[in-house]
């Protein structure tokens, strides 16, 4: 998408000021979301989320590993985002690195909680197999296929859907493992443990254009933003993470106002996502 002319810029800003955006939505309305789960059969869990023209895929792979010595009773999660050149030609090679790092850091900040593990959206203690010796490590890899704005929200939704779809194989630990030896484990191929994803937060990005905030900005609208705040809210209405993106400064009272707007919007988004994910899982079971 090339540059916007002055007329187009005024049209976007004026529309937002009057609560009528270019595609007819109101300021706080999301684009229709569609969720498919189980798109990557080889991964432990996967999902594809489409929000308008933004298309992302997220996959979860679980591998056995050793827990860190600082937190022997918790598993490990690592989140990585890759921007594919199919989204924009400038993402080829090293071009997409900066955006990928930004998105990965924002997702880790929003979903993984504090260093001690408290407040994490994902319950890490359920990933432990043998305390201090063996734990599951979840590698969450996301791929951006097509980008039309609001990548962070779509990635957050994709991760939530992929985790609901994740089945971790049941592990039977051989009894009598002694001392420092690695315990023998028998990884079952049949039984799977489903992950509890009711506590995973959703990410709501509020983009400030002029004096108003919009939700789910398209890439045109994002080019006009002065700043954006991405807030991760869980079902209980607690903030699980917040990052401010974009260059311009914001008054602290505006940030607090954005937080309350995000909480309000997140309730609808959580309900919508949950019903979409449930429908996708049900559809997958039938086929």
């Amino acid at each position, binding site marked *: 998408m090339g540059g916007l002319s002055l007329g187009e810029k005024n049209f976007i800003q004026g529309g937002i000021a009057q609560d009528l955006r270019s595609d007819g939505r109101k300021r706080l309305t999301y684009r229709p979301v569609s969720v498919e789960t189980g798109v990557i059969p080889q991964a432990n869990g996967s999902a594809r989320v489409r929000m308008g023209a933004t298309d992302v895929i997220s996959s979860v792979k679980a591998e056995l590993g050793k827990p860190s*010595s*600082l937190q022997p009773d918790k598993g490990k999660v690592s989140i990585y985002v890759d921007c594919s050149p199919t989204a924009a030609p400038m993402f080829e090679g090293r071009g997409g*690195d*900066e955006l990928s*790092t*930004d998105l*990965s*850091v924002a997702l880790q*900040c*929003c979903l*993984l*909680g*504090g*260093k*001690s593990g*408290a*407040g994490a959206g994902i319950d890490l203690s359920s990933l432990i197999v043998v305390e201090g010796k063996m734990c599951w490590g979840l590698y969450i890899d996301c791929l951006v296929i097509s980008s039309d704005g609001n990548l962070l929200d779509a990635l957050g939704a994709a991760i939530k859907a992929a985790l609901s779809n994740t089945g971790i194989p049941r592990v039977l630990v051989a009894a009598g493992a002694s001392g420092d030896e690695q315990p023998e484990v028998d990884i079952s191929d049949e039984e799977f443990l489903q992950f509890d994803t009711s506590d995973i937060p959703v990410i709501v990005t509020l983009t400030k254009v002029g004096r108003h905030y919009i939700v789910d900005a398209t890439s045109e609208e994002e080019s006009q933003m002065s700043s954006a*705040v991405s807030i991760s809210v*869980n079902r209980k209405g*607690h*903030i*699980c*993470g*917040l*990052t*401010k*993106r*974009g*260059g*311009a*400064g*914001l*008054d*602290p009272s505006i*940030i*607090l106002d954005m*937080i*309350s707007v995000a*909480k309000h919007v997140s309730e609808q988004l959580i309900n919508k996502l949950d019903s979409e994910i449930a429908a996708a899982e049900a559809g997958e079971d039938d086929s």
Partner: protein
Amino acid sequence: MAGRPGTNPTTYSPSLKTQKTRSTIFKDQEIDWVRPDGRGFQQCRPAFFRTGAVTAASGSAYAEFGNTKVIVSVFGPRESKKAMMYSDIGRLNCNVSYTTFATPVRAQGSDRKEFSSMLHKALEGAIILETFPKTTVDVFALVLESGGSDLPVVISCASLALADAGILMYDLVTSVSLSCLGKNLVIDPILEEESYQDGSLMITCMPSRYEVTQLTITGEWSTPKINEGMQLCLDACSKLANIMRSCLKEATTSSQE
């Protein structure tokens, strides 16, 4: 040599702290945390700033906050080989790297890409880029010792270095971070406190304009807690800005003598 006890010189012996398993100080939520360096919960570490640390650079600054030692040098505005396209505003290029001896356990000294991009975002709102079109300003930060709360110290030191280089800015940028330990809000955490934290809040602001340029929150927070945390940090930021201003004034008066 290692096998003969009693013949080791007593002048210096490397600490074996890394071998000890970390004790869980904080199992019980009721116990109040006592800070190892005796500070109050809302007390920041004493700040030491000095400009003109690197003579070869256009501007530079050295900051020391307790055990966190950072040096930042600014080069520019100068021509950059990387910038191919004409642009009528200046470019800012930031790089944050750690030395290999910065952390308690020797790690490969590498760039921290995420810190570099966060430093970039924190500074770009404050620099008047229109004043140096077609050129680039490079900001290189080196963390000599990491003692906790690294990124806020890097950001504050970088804005001091930019001021020392004479780059036009809207305001000095200061940054403070806050840790949530159980129910306590602890400002300017050290490395040990950061590893136990339940949540963190890092705020970067321009104190005179009362604007927040960057805010990062991790962990679970309720809105009144965020409010309280932000007020604490903004207050600390304005005090830090006064310290930075007096450091800049000292530097100019001593060079005039």
